[in-house]
């Protein structure tokens, strides 16, 4: 069995990638993907924790977190669609009517 610390180590890397992507990419859909990556990093931690402690809770958390991520994506894509229908862009840099 893989040592849980490797799993959570992967989580750290994923989280870093996700966070970095969130503020470097300007395409909103890619940012959305980055957020998913960050959530998955958390999931990895839960899994690692569950196997480390032999605790079933971690698996449950993972399942629910995946559900949350799904909901997030659904809502996110809907919002991005509505943004696209009015401003015809999903670039974070260009959608900045509201500022200051």
């Amino acid at each position, binding site marked *: 069995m893989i040592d849980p610390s490797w799993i959570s180590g992967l989580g750290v890397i994923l989280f870093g990638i996700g*966070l970095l992507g969130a503020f470097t990419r300007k395409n909103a859909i890619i940012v959305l993907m980055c957020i998913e990556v960050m959530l998955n990093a958390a999931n990895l931690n839960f899994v690692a924790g569950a196997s480390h402690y032999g605790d079933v809770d971690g698996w449950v958390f993972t399942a629910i977190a995946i559900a949350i991520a799904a909901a997030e994506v659904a809502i996110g894509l809907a919002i991005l669609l509505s943004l696209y229908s009015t401003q015809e862009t999903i670039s974070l*840099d260009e959608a*900045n009517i509201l*500022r*200051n």
Partner: protein
Amino acid sequence: MGETKNEYRLLLPLLPFLVIVPYLALQTDSHSTDFAWLIVVAPFIMFPIILIIGQVFNKNETWKNTWKEGGILGLAALSVSLSTTIWIVYDYLIGHADITNSGVDSWLEWISFDVLQSDYTIAQNRILGVGVWIDSLTLMLLFVATFLCFLICWFAIGYMTTDPINEDSNHRFFAEFVLFSLGMFGMVLADNFLWLFIFWEVMGLCSYLLIGFYYWKDSAAAAAKKAFLTTRVGDVFLMIGLLILYDIYGSLDFAVVFDDPSTGIGGVAVESGELFWALMMLFIGAVGKSAQFPLHVWLPDAMEGPTPVSALIHAATMVNAGLYLVARLMPFVDIHHNGVSGLEDFGLIVAWIGGITAFMAASIAFVQNDIKKVLAYSTMSQLAYIFTGLGSALYFLNTGDHHAGYFVLGASLFHLFNHAMAKGMLFMASGSVIHEVHHAHDHLHHGSDHSDHDFDPQDMRNMGGIASKMPVTSTAMMFGSMSIIGIPLIGGFWSKEGIIAETWLAYFHGETMMLGPAILILATAGMTGFYMSRMWFMTFAGQPKSDVVDHIHEATPWIKEPLLILTFITAIGGFALATLGIIDFLSNESHHLSLHGHSLQEQILHELEHAFLPEDNKLRMVGWTTILLSFVIGPIMAARIHGGKLKEGQKANIFVGWLVNLSDKFGTQDVTWLAESQLAEALDKRLYFDDLYEGIIARTVIPFAELSAWFDKNIIDGIIKQIESNSVLGSVQIRKVTTGNARDYILMATVGALCIFALLVGVNN
């Protein structure tokens, strides 16, 4: 305007207000002192009502004609105050146990607070209460104030609402009027110095508002400012005095302070030196309020207000406040009752200030041609009499001669009463004259383009021979003047005689310093005779001096009734009250007004003998000199210069007709040479006091004020502006961080998170 309208039906709304107090009084178990708050609260409630209703219904016909723009409401409130006062006075006179036993009534705690004392310990639960202090002094002033305020308000309804210049601003007048009244009522009733001071300031504010009632006139605005600032100088000292008193006694309650003035807080014996300064400071406050030398300059200018305001300030309220305060200080020096000895100097100073003011004001009054200005200086002069009397009382009480002290104290306060009644009436009468002259002038020049703006309806040189046109007013004014002059048997005679005699007595008892005030007020007695007679003769006797006089009618409603009532009181009130022993009553020697077991004749004879044939030869001489000066020499000189027959075919009523005719008998005398002298000019310029003060202020205060203004503008404002502009700059910068780009937000959040970690690590290592 013109024909007299019967407007008494307008008084119907007063009925419910008049019923309140009798209803309360008829309740069993009701004590008048429990309702003393009504005196203050009634006007206090009415003040905003008049103001708000007036503001809302301004120009409404019903409001104007039926409610007299708030006048009726003001009258209603004052009627409650007056009837409550009468109830309390009645209770007091019949010796109601509640009052005579305690004399003080505290209802509730107002504020309780902790005090950091000078030794850095904290005294807990100091309490500021709300209560009333009732003794004969309170009652007399309360009666004077409520009674005169009521009458003046009545008078003002006629005077103010028929004058087009006041159109649509009368609600302001009446609202401020009741506020002013409540200031005086509250001050008199207060049972501690702090409340006294608060109400004192209420009056200060209202005097400013009312003197500046015609605020669009520069002179009125300036006069208001002058009155406010001058009295303010006194108020600052008053405040300092109160602080010293608090320091000495640890309380400002009359009950605590007067219980044993010789023992301060913590049982320490009070040093006369410290107390002297406290009293001096309080006295300076009183000097400002009562317009005595050297803070007298505001009073003549205060004539800029409407005439009812003059009556209010000069007779009923404000100037009496200073006298009241000084009279309140008696227990401090009364060594017969635990007073602090060694304060004779204080009495001397008060007497000297009084003497100087009396003489100075009387001499300035010689040359005034404005009818109200004459009265204004007369007020100053008469108040100065009272101060001299109070000064003598302070002196006697402190030197142990408490009989003489109480007598002159009572006489002074009695003079206050007589003067208030007479002066209130004189002002109203002068208002009546001015009002009618003004209307006659308007009537005469109706249709012409009012080019005659130079015409001054207050200038006596435009009058003359009005006696036949205005029978009520001329009679009232005659009795008023007599009372002020001190014509034997009438009003002020009874009290003035006492003041002068006792001041001389102090001199005879070996206090040489009292000679000055004694001589000054004796001379002033004669001068009073002159200038009051001069005013009357110039106005009412002789040939008309302008074409206006022919068109005068005594026709404005609401004006005559107060005059008649006060004429009656002035004419016989003095004698009657003197017979009833008011002097003992006012000095708290007795609690009753009665014949003291004598029959009426005995008592009258006793009083007459006391007045005209005192046992002491010296005093007898002083008395007769006074009578000679004031009754004979002064008036005759005035009659020679200004008296004379009325115009052919005009006839005055019998009350004044004899006087007009008499004045003709003394022949005429030309005094033009005197009127053009430098002395007259100096007097006309009010002895240059105003110029002097202006000069001093221009050299001291104004440069300092300019420096302060510069400091305020450049340093304080500069700092504030700098802060503001920096804030705005910062704001603009910080808003730029909100770029509108979600990526930047995430970046910022990440940076923030890193900062958090840095902090967490940094702090915990």
